[in-house]
């Protein structure tokens, strides 16, 4: 392994130096690309040098740089949803060139697309990656009228869900905890509100959402299967602007504007549900609500130094009769400094804090208790982009995280309580990562991106680690010794090299082949034995008894555009193999168990699939359709008698359509259709009697497939004509969820029926199907000023 590492570092250095040498007689043009209307930095805008038939794209901070020989150039700036801007420049010295792209006022005018226009779907080296257009999401049918990006993500190729009403998603055979969910670079440990009915992402503040399923850039690590990167708006730096919406279940408002015009701006947004108000009206003394707050400020010191501070707070609160209550939530804070060291070396320094916690409380004289748990993370990140030339770009950086896991504390909440204070051991970890990645255009057809991430994970003290007679014996637990560790003393460490490689080969101007390989390492493990994680699950770091999970994924893809790039088609096949996938023993006690380590069972998982996608981003009719064929299996020691079994989120076929159509400037129609094979569950297939109790048993885990799932949702967005010329602009979104009211199985369970006398008759059994939502209409009223 050390040899590979050295070769990599060396070759990286070599490219660095050679490119330095031959770029001496060139000049650099760089700058930020922004939205002309509100000054938001735009991500992924292609900057094309017509004369050289090459170009670059703005990075995630809206920054681009091109290093060119002196001369006259025509630059084309292009991004979906914006008018294309063409500029001619004479380059005789280093230049700063900030660009503002005007928004396409109406999609009614069909755009004339130039033949040579480049298209990221085909030409970009990235594959296995999807962008979620939040503007479209807002016009799609939404459950209870609450637009949710996670619901659209669940319809992308290679992504599946465990069923409706959950915010968990499963990417290419990975479980829900294998997704790294980031909001402004800060990790979110549980993205659910109301047990998953909605996600924590308020659609009003989202600027950009990207999902990486494969070919994952080296700047990301820490989870096996995907990266969901959500970036929030920076705030309009030209004009003050407000907006809001009233939905069936929740309301939201947003305010943004300049603090000093063109220099600094802010955005603040809030959302709150009001189910509890309905409950109160119905005479129920229960409290149930959730809220989200997003806030961000940014200021431009000068073109070389920009600062951002972002905050997210979200919480769900449940309280019953003032006797029993619980709540959970995420809180994140991000501070970022964008700095230009020189024309071509862009730096982003981030300080990130993230906290997820939950509490349960029972108010009772003798049995009252308070149970609390949390996970905290502090991260320092230094990411650098070095724009060597339009054909040559190097990204490198260093990340350091300190994690603090508090799996649970139980305290009595009265003197008479039976409970004594019990605290499960806290765990601490340090996670160091360095990475380097080099993108090189070898010729007009072939571009390669290669790099690696080196992860050094330390489980550190203070800790008291128990040694066991047999750590896999979870019934007769025998501790033999206890090892004590001081603060920051290493308990165990793991060093892993994660190679990343991608290549793109242009077959012709309209089609390309792409290939990628990535190794991902995951050192934070979710302690959950259910299919859908619940907010009361805890996390644990890799340590003495828990090894890092490692996934290798290879993907190949064919990308083709049709009809002047109006239609983007992709076909990808992947194979993913996971070592040390974390699972649990049969009948594991995962809640409040001091000897939890005896329940750990790590095994293998493998999955493969084929994904097809056809997408249309421009014009009156936009949307995508996707089809996925996939299979995921697991083999865990002692589980299912050591035999392989289907993962509980395995779905053989998965077909989706997501579309919006602008009927007129007044009406926009939207629709979702999804059809998937049912996921496997475990049902008892045998029974016996023991001490007068009826006991059921199974012969295979996940041996029963739920019925197929399909559902159609429809929506219509009304933007009244009287909006024109008014400061207050309003719109209505009407949605119908599950239009033909199919009873889709959430799950099936079996039970013993009663005889005529109301006594359970062991010889009469029945299976029952649980479904969540029949046809559900909803209305949302939106306003903007």
């Amino acid at each position, binding site marked *: 392994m050390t040899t590979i590492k050295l070769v990599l570092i060396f070759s990286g250095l070599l490219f660095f130096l050679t490119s330095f040498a031959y770029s001496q007689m060139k000049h650099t043009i760089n700058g930020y690309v922004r939205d002309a209307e509100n000054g938001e930095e735009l991500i992924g805008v292609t900057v094309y040098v017509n004369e050289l038939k090459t170009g670059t794209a703005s990075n995630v901070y809206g920054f681009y740089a091109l290093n060119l020989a002196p001369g006259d150039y025509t630059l084309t700036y292009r991004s979906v949803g914006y008018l294309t801007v063409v500029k001619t420049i004479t380059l005789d010295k280093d230049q700063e060139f900030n660009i503002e792209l005007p928004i396409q006022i109406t999609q009614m005018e069909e755009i004339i697309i130039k033949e040579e226009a480049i298209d990221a779907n085909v030409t970009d080296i990235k594959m296995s990656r999807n962008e979620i257009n939040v503007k479209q999401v807002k016009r799609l049918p939404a459950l209870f009228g609450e637009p949710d990006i996670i619901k659209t993500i669940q319809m992308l190729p290679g992504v599946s869900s465990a069923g409706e009403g959950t915010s968990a998603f499963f990417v290419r055979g990975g479980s829900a905890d294998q997704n790294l969910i980031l909001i402004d670079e800060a990790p979110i440990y549980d993205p659910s509100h*109301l*047990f998953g009915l909605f996600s924590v992402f308020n659609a009003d503040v989202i600027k950009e959402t990207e999902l990486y399923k494969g070919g994952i850039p080296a700047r990301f690590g820490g989870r096996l299967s995907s990266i969901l990167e959500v970036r929030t708006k920076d705030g309009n730096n030209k004009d003050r602007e407000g907006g809001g919406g009233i939905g069936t279940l929740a309301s939201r408002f947003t305010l943004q504007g300049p603090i000093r015009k063109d220099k600094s701006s802010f955005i603040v947004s809030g959302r709150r549900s009001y*189910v509890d108000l309905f*409950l109160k009206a119905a005479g*129920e003394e229960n409290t149930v609500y959730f809220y989200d707050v997003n806030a961000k400020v940014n200021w431009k010191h000068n073109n070389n130094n920009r600062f951002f501070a972002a905050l997210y707070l979200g919480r769900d609160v*449940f309280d*019953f009769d003032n006797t029993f209550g*619980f709540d959970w939530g995420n809180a994140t804070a991000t501070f970022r400094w964008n700095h230009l060291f020189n024309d071509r070396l862009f730096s982003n320094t981030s300080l990130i804090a993230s906290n997820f916690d939950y509490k*349960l409380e029972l108010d009772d004289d*003798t*049995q009252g208790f308070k149970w609390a748990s949390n996970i905290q993370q502090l991260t320092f990140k230094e990411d650098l982009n070095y724009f060597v030339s339009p054909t040559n770009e190097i990204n490198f950086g260093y990340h350091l995280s300190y994690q603090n896991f508090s799996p649970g504390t139980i305290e009595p909440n009265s003197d008479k309580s039976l409970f004594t204070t019990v605290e499960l051991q806290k765990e601490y970890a340090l996670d160091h990562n360095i990475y380097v990645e080099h993108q090189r255009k070898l010729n007009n057809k072939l571009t390669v991106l290669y790099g690696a991430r080196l992860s050094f994970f330390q489980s550190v003290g203070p800790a008291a680690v128990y040694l066991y007679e047999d750590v896999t014996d979870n*019934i*007769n637990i025998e501790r033999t010794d206890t090892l004590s560790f001081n603060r920051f003393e290493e308990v165990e460490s793991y060093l892993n090299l994660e190679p990343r490689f991608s290549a793109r080969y242009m077959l012709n101007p309209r089609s390309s082949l792409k290939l990628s390989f990535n190794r991902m390492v995951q050192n934070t493990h979710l302690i959950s*034995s*259910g*299919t*859908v994680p*619940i907010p*009361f699950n805890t996390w644990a770091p890799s340590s003495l008894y828990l090894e890092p999970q490692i996934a290798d994924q290879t993907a190949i893809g064919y990308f083709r555009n049709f009809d002047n790039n109006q239609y983007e088609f992709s076909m990808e096949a992947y194979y993913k193999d996971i070592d040390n996938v974390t699972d649990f023993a*049969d*009948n594991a006690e995962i809640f409040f*168990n*001091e000897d939890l380590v005896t329940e750990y069972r790590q095994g293998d998982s493998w999955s493969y699939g084929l994904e097809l996608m056809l997408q249309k981003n421009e014009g009156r009719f936009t949307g995508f359709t996707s089809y996925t064929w996939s299979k995921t299996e697991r083999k865990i020691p002692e589980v299912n008698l050591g035999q392989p079994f289907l993962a*509980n989120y395995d779905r053989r076929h998965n077909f989706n359509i997501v579309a919006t159509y602008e009927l007129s400037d007044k009406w926009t129609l939207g629709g979702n259709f999804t059809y998937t094979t049912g996921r496997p569950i475990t*049902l*008892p*297939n*045998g*029974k*016996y*009697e*023991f*001490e*007068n*109790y009826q*006991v*059921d*048993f*199974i*012969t*295979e*885990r996940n041996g*029963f497939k739920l019925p197929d799932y399909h559902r159609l949702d429809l929506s219509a967005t009304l933007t009244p004509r009287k909006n024109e010329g008014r400061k207050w602009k309003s719109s209505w979104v009407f949605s119908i969820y599950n239009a033909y009211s199919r*009873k889709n199985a*959430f*799950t*099936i*369970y*079996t039970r013993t029926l009663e005889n005529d006398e*109301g006594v359970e008759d062991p*010889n009469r059994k029945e*299976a*029952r*199907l*649980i*479904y*969540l*939502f*029949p046809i*559900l209409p909803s209305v949302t009223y939106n306003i903007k000023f």
Partner: protein
Amino acid sequence: MKRIAIIVLASGLLGCEDPIDVTLEEAEPVLVVDAWINNKPELQIIKLSMAQPYFDSSLPPPVSGATVVVSSSANETFIFEERNTPGDYVWDPSTSANGIGEIETEYQLQIEVNDEIYVSISQINRVPTIDSIKFTFKEELNQFQPEGYYGEFVSADPRGEGDTYWIKTFKNGIYQNRPFDLTIAYDAGFSQGGLIDGVVFIQPLQDSVNPLNEDLDEIVPYEIGDSLYVEIHSITNDAFFFLQELQIQTQRDGGFDEIFAEPFENVPSNIINADENGEDIIGYFNVAAVSGSGRKLTE
């Protein structure tokens, strides 16, 4: 915790459930052994039967012609013989010179049937005596606990962690054995992590002798003339975990609980085939020491 989530879902949403026909792969027939014996001076029975496919509506088929022997570390042998009821293997302490009883004696169960040999080992553990049975008249506390006489038993777990018990209730002589009646204790508390040792059984355990109504939504208080008899059976720690799993499985009441339920898993077994490659077996062997006390509710 789960149930609260369900209230939320059920009150806020419109979810429903329907019966459905499912085709399940039929489980292979497996030998089932119910070997739960004790030191009471009454007939001790070990039952052998076959497991059935889930939707089979016939009675469980008994297994006849087996040799069932329990032997102890004190070199005693107890032969269980199939008598009148097929599949029931019986040993009668009244006709035997020696008996089951010495605390901390180890017992081995050996069963020979259909050319296979199955074995299991258990140990009889200490059991506390029941000092008294009490009835208290209580006003209506809530919907769940109406006005009436509530029974409780007074007994203390001996000092020393790791005693496990099964507490059985007999109301008017009838053993209460519905899934929600199953009460087990780890020391004086509900479970291992509780760290409640060497004290009187916690109140919820003492209260467990008040059975629920048929709909499981209300306690049925005792009336004048009713009798209550309580037994504490000592069980091994692994038998405790076995019953805990049995409890989780049999008390699974379906409905919306299933949404957050953990996957269905088999309850463990402590009887094994002497031949690793032989036929599988399901069942449990435990030898209990029993203490008991009763009282009739009079005016």
